[in-house]
């Protein structure tokens, strides 16, 4: 029970990774606000123990209302996880302005807005003596690009830079800011990529593509949402009290290698 007594809010809480984080936080003893567009999960209809908060991360009024709810109940927020995200599978040329703006609205502006209204509550939490922890979702795509994901890569690069900026600005207030940069994780988003909605399909069978993706990883597999939740849990806990301003890549070794040339 590493998070006993902590108050946490997770955005994108009904997505593949978000659900696993909420479940883990609950298990570790935190009071968890599970924020998303709808209470239904994207994996199944099971509702976990988190308190559902309706939050569209692109709407300033929603962010304000969510934090008001936390303030009234607890007066503080120890942990914020900005896990809400969308992925448009297109090159720059094919991406419409509307799709580009929507990508930034959710992935980058959403992270900004939720953080902006959470910070005063996190400052209150830090007054207890143990630091508050803000965890953003970057991506290994913020370092090296996947083909046909232009807007997504750009939004994640923005999240990485914002993470460093917030760590500098709010470290002296006792708030640690980090980003987790997942590689291929088995979520509905990845399955949609495999299903060939965009560049991922490539014409072959899903099984062939899945095997090819696994084989490129040194660990010969892609990750699970629980793998990500393990690191979120550590970063949220007091054990990580000296960890701030970093981008934590968790990708089964994928980005440690240079391109695997098929000669």
């Amino acid at each position, binding site marked *: 029970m590493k998070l006993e007594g902590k108050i946490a809010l997770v955005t994108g809480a009904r997505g593949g990774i978000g659900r696993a984080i909420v479940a883990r936080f609950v298990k570790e003893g935190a009071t968890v606000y599970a924020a998303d567009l709808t209470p239904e999960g994207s994996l199944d209809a099971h509702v976990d123990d988190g308190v559902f908060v309706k939050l569209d991360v692109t709407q300033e009024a929603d962010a304000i209302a969510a934090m008001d709810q936390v303030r009234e109940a607890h007066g503080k927020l120890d942990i914020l996880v900005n896990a809400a995200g969308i992925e448009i599978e297109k090159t720059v040329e094919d991406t419409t302005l509307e799709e580009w703006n929507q990508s930034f609205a959710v992935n980058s502006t959403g992270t900004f807005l939720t953080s902006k209204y959470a910070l005063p509550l996190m400052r209150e939490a830090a007054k207890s003596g143990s630091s508050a922890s803000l965890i953003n979702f970057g991506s290994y795509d913020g370092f090296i690009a996947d083909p046909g994901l232009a807007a997504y890569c750009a939004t994640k690069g923005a999240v990485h830079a914002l993470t460093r900026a917030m760590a500098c600005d709010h*470290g002296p207030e006792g708030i640690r800011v980090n980003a987790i940069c997942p590689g291929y994780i088995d979520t509905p988003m990845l399955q949609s990529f495999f299903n060939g909605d965009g560049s991922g399909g490539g014409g072959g069978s899903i099984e062939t593509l899945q095997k090819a993706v696994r084989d490129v990883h040194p*660990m010969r*597999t892609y990750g699970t949402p629980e793998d990500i939740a*393990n*690191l979120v849990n550590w970063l949220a806990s007091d*054990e990580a009290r000296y*960890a701030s*301003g970093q981008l934590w890549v968790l990708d089964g070794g994928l980005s*440690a290698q240079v391109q695997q040339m098929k000669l």
Partner: protein
Amino acid sequence: MRLAGKKAFVTGGRQGIGRGIVDAFLNEGATVTTCGRGARPKGLPPEVTWLALDVSDPSAVNAVATPTDILVNNAGVQVEKTVADSTDADWDQVMGTNARGVFNCCRAFIPVMPKGGSIINIGSISGNVADPSMALYNASKAFVHGLTRSIAVDHGPDIRCNAICPGWIETGMLDAGFELAKDPKKAKQDALVRHPVRRFGKPADIAAMAVWLASEEAGFATGQLFTVDGGMTAASPLNPGLF
């Protein structure tokens, strides 16, 4: 007890970060062996096995390699010189321990490491961005980073290999650095302001990351450099607030 039943070998456990990792591993239930040049240090918990070992000596390292779940390559030395000032003896000393020592231990332990083993190398932020007048040290840590990725790629899925890159940690090495400054007190204050968390690290901060990387929870983490530096390298070294 996240490491119950695990056997760990930590090089350079006499003091500083190495000793912090030995203590943390013991606390999590591991059976720990550590080593260093010379006699067993006073105050090392009795349940820890001590080996007098110079990691730069390949045959000596080969002689002590037994099946081990967790290998932590922490032993390291530093020589504070530029390339122009460094002697052949400096090269042999720094590269011998920091680079060849890590290689010696990995080469000896990998073949006998059980499936699911975890190698944790102590790299450094200095392997990514250079500390002035630490040429061989910086280069030796970049070697460690490169070797870390190579082992992850070559020996996955059986073995995971990661590096921790500590920033400024309160050890004898750090104080010695400040003593060299014109005004040690001012130098220390300046260094503190460059840390977003407004303090230096403690060996326990690095040990906490080592425990996580050694544990089953880190089962998908391999081939990576994990920086734990209180936010220092997230900030540009050009900080207008300090002028």
